[in-house]
C-alpha cells in the first residue's frame, strides 16, 4: 500500500494471512435515506442513481467503491429488484430463479478472466452485519487469488479423501436431526459443527462444482430452497433476519490438491446469521478473535428444531 495506491495487499506474518486494503471504501455511501438510495430507479425529476431507468428487474454494475478491480480482480453489485422494501425472501419465485441465472452468467464471465481465480457471490443483509445500503442487493468479488476459506474447503477434500460437501451431505441425511428442508435437487441443514446459532448450509444433492454445471431445474430448485430458508429466518423471530449469505463454488483457476474429487468444489450456499435470540447478537470476541476458537451458545440440533418450525410458518 502506498499513498498513490488505493488498493493494496500486505502479508501478516504472525497469522500467515494477507490483508487487502481498499482505502477509498472509507468514503462509500453509508445508510442513505430512502430518497437518496443509489440502488433505486432514477425516476423522472428525481436524483440520478446508479441505475438510469425508471424501472428495472435485475441489474449488475461495477462497484463504485471496489475492493478489487481490473486488472487485479473485480467487485460488482447485484441489485435484485427495483422495490426498495423487498428482500431476497420476498422476491417472486420467477425473479429468484432468474437471479440464479444471473449469478451463473457472472460466474462464467468473471471466471473466464485471467486475473480472477475465485468468483465469490455473497449478500450481507442487515446493519448487524455491516450493510450500508438497505435496498435488496448482493455483491460479487472476483478475487485475483484463491482466498483462505475456499482453500480450506479444498484441504477438507484431501482430508476426507473425496468431495467434502458430498461426504458431509451424506452424513447429515443419515443423521437427519439437523435437516431443515429438502427438494429434489437441494438439501438445507444446520451443520453438525455450526458456529453461528442459526447457521445453515444449502447443498446441491448432486456433485455440481458450480452454477455452470447445474441444469435449469436445479437452478429453479436452488432458488426455492434459498427462499424457503430465508423466509423461515424472517419467521423465526418475526423480524427481518440479518445474515451473511456466501455462495461457495469451484475456483476458476487450476488448483493443486492431494485428492481427485472429479472437479474440485461443490456448489453450496452458507448462511451466517449473527442473531442468537430475537434481540441478542453473537459477537466475535476474545476467544474467536484472539484465539481463533469459536464458542457457541446453542446446540445445532435445538436450533434446527426451531428453524424447522419457523420454515413451516414462513411458507
Amino acid at each position: 500500500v502506498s499513498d498513490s495506491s488505493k488498493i493494496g495487499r500486505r502479508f501478516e506474518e504472525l497469522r500467515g494471512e494477507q490483508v487487502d486494503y481498499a482505502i477509498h471504501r472509507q468514503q462509500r455511501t453509508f445508510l442513505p435515506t430512502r430518497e437518496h438510495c443509489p440502488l433505486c430507479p432514477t425516476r423522472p425529476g428525481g436524483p440520478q442513481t446508479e441505475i438510469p431507468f425508471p424501472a428495472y428487474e435485475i441489474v449488475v454494475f461495477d462497484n463504485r467503491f471496489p475492493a478489487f478491480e481490473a486488472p487485479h480482480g473485480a467487485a460488482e453489485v447485484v441489485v435484485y429488484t427495483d422495490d426498495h422494501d423487498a428482500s431476497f425472501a420476498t422476491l417472486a419465485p420467477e425473479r429468484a430463479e432468474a437471479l440464479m441465472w444471473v449469478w451463473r452468467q457472472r460466474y462464467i464471465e468473471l471466471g473466464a478472466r485471467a486475473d480472477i481465480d475465485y468468483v465469490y457471490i455473497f449478500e450481507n443483509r442487515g446493519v448487524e452485519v455491516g450493510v450500508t445500503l438497505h435496498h435488496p442487493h448482493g455483491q460479487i468479488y472476483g478475487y485475483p487469488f484463491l482466498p483462505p476459506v475456499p482453500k480450506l474447503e479444498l484441504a477438507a477434500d484431501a482430508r476426507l479423501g473425496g468431495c467434502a460437501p458430498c461426504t458431509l451431505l451424506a452424513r447429515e441425511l443419515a443423521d437427519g436431526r439437523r435437516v431443515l428442508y429438502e427438494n429434489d435437487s437441494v438439501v438445507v441443514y444446520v451443520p453438525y459443527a455450526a458456529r453461528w446459532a442459526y447457521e445453515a448450509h444449502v447443498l446441491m444433492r448432486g456433485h455440481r462444482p458450480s452454477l455452470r454445471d447445474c441444469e435449469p431445474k436445479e437452478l429453479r430448485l436452488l432458488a426455492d430452497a434459498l427462499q424457503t430458508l430465508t423466509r423461515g429466518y424472517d419467521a423465526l423471530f418475526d423480524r427481518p433476519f440479518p445474515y451473511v449469505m456466501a455462495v461457495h463454488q469451484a475456483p476458476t483457476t487450476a488448483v493443486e490438491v492431494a485428492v481427485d474429487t472429479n472437479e474440485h468444489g461443490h456448489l453450496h450456499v452458507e448462511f451466517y446469521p449473527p442473531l442468537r435470540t430475537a434481540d441478542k447478537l453473537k459477537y466475535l470476541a476474545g476467544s474467536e478473535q484472539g484465539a481463533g476458537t469459536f464458542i457457541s451458545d446453542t446446540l445445532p440440533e435445538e436450533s434446527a428444531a426451531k428453524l424447522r418450525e419457523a420454515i413451516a410458518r414462513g411458507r
Partner: protein
Amino acid sequence: VSELPTWVYPQAMAGKPAESSTCGPVTITRLVKDDGRALIMYALKTDGRPK
C-alpha cells in the same frame, strides 16, 4: 433501455463488442456509464422459462 439518458451508452460505443444475449430465462443488455463502469441490465423473458 431504448431511451438512454446521457450518462450511459451501449457497450459497443466503449469500443467493446456489442452483445445482446440471453441466459436461461433472462435477456442481457450491456451498457457503460460515463465513468467507464459496466452496467448490465437483466430482464425476464416473456416466452417462458427453460425446462
